[in-house]
């Protein structure tokens, strides 16, 4: 049974088509990244999964339950960190947690969970005085109550400093190791790249790619540029490098050998080959075509091609 299954999901707000015929399957046990620029339809899709918003057409099911008709069963079994939420200013962190425990009717060690997300020391302060990062930790703690089968995290790193974002990823990994499926959205490729098994990229309400990170790299014309400082390379060495698998071009300019390679090429093969040929390799730098570039390519160029 898939954790999430979208079938022709469409949502129209007046003239705006926020989600346009999404088909997507998230398998149980994976960490799935839902990626797209702001306004691409990520939050609307998540809002439909939670029955905050009703689809215009198509269906969404979560853990085998219809997201609209059986929403209570869905929400009993998942943990959610929503986007653009607001905490109850006048209630303490602990009172927020108690509310979740009562709402889900589960037994939970509130303090242990708050310890995991590092908000325990502020547990008895009113949440209105929390910083953005602290609120994010509190709401993440709320999402973890009751050991959910699926975590839905909408832009979880918002408001977190780099350290906090790293801790967030750590928690996501630990939860995933315990068997929890994680579905999270982001507009920043970097966050997704670090931990996701698979990624979906959406733009203007439409799915433009679903694949593993490596698969995404392979599917596009990603190139890596290698700049190698060499002291005694000749034309035959350049020729030799050009013949290596995955190498697209090799040019020598003074002391710098510039090699461009496709996704399946190995820079170590190049370096080893030069070494074997007796070329003295000094410094070298790698300009890898980043996933960020890939993301930009998917969400701009491809759209232009389609349009």
């Amino acid at each position, binding site marked *: 049974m898939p954790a999430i299954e979208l079938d022709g999901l469409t949502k129209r707000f007046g003239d705006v088509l926020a989600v346009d015929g999404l088909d997507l399957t998230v398998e149980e046990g994976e960490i799935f990244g839902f990626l797209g620029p702001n306004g691409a339809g990520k939050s609307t899709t998540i809002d439909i999964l939670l029955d905050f918003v009703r689809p215009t057409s198509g269906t969404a099911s979560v853990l085998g339950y219809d997201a609209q008709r059986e929403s*209570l069963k869905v929400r009993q079994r998942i943990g*959610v960190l929503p986007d653009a*939420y607001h905490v109850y200013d006048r*209630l303490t962190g602990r009172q*927020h947690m108690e509310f979740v425990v*009562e*709402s889900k009717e589960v037994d939970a060690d509130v303090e242990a969970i708050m310890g995991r997300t590092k908000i325990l020391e502020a547990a008895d302060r009113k949440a209105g005085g929390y910083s953005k990062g602290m609120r994010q930790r509190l709401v993440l703690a709320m999402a973890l109550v009751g050991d959910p089968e699926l975590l839905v995290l909408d832009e979880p790193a918002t408001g977190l400093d780099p350290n906090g974002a790293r801790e967030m990823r750590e928690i996501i990994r630990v939860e995933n190791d315990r068997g929890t499926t994680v579905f999270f959205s982001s507009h920043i490729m970097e966050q997704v790249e670090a931990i996701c098994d698979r990624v979906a990229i959406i733009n203007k309400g439409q799915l433009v790619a679903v694949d593993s990170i490596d698969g995404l790299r392979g599917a596009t014309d990603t190139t890596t540029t290698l700049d190698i400082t060499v002291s005694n390379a000749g034309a035959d060495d350049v020729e030799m490098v050009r013949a290596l698998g995955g190498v697209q071009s090799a040019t020598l300019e003074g002391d710098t050998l510039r090699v461009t390679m496709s996704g399946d090429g190995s820079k170590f093969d190049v370096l080893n080959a030069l070494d074997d040929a007796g070329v003295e390799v000094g410094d070298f730098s790698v300009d890898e075509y980043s996933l960020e570039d890939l993301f930009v390519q998917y969400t701009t160029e491809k759209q232009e091609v389609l349009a």
Partner: protein
Amino acid sequence: MSWTAVAKKDFRDASQSRALWGLVVVFVAVASLLAYAYAEFPTTVAESDEATVGGLVFFMASIVGLFVSLTAIVVCYKSIAGERELGSIKLLLALPHSRRDVFVGKLVGRSAVLVAAVAVGLAVGYGIGFVMIGTVEVAPVVLFLLMTLVFTVAYVGIVVSISATTGSTSRATTLALGFFLLFELLWDAIPILLVYVVNGFSLPETMPDWVYLVTQIPPSSSYVLSLIALMPDIADSIGTSSGAEEVDVFYATPEIGFVILAFWLVVPLALGYYRFDGADL
């Protein structure tokens, strides 16, 4: 029973509102003053020969009507619209609560806040009055408290329902204040205006019968009318009249107050819930 969790959370949250406590302080002061005035000068303030417990109970109804309507607006206008505007409703509805649970929980939680606030004011006011008069009668006090409870819940229901129709607090404020202005401040003029228009822009010699009914429409009027229906003798003793005797149609009885109050208790809730349940948040 998940509405109980919502109600408890909401009670904790709303009972910490500073505006609420400000109103409670004012209400306690005014209730004490009124109780004192009635017990000391019954002839002047209530046209009754001597101060009685029943008279005191009734005399308080007018101030309760005003306090409950104002406080209901202050405590409830943001109850749902505010959570939608800020986004805290996403925390609430990410949990296994149906929208009905949220709606009912809000109604119960906010009603509890308001009932507690009214109870504090009345307890102090009655305390002073009972001590000054020197006796306590159970029956009128219980009847009055029951009616006041119904009235309070009805008003909370009205404002929560208004709040449930929109995701904007400024719009909820406008609607709630508009309701208050129309039904609690300006309503006296409405039947006359209606008659004036219906009669071809002039006023007739005698008012038509239906004016009685229209006059009683505001929630607080139906509350007072219901009290008169429950305790006619006491109402008479302090000179409070429904005006029903002067009109000779079947609906010109104080009992019509129950019907109008029931309308206010049911219809706004039904409309508010219907809008909230169908909304994209």
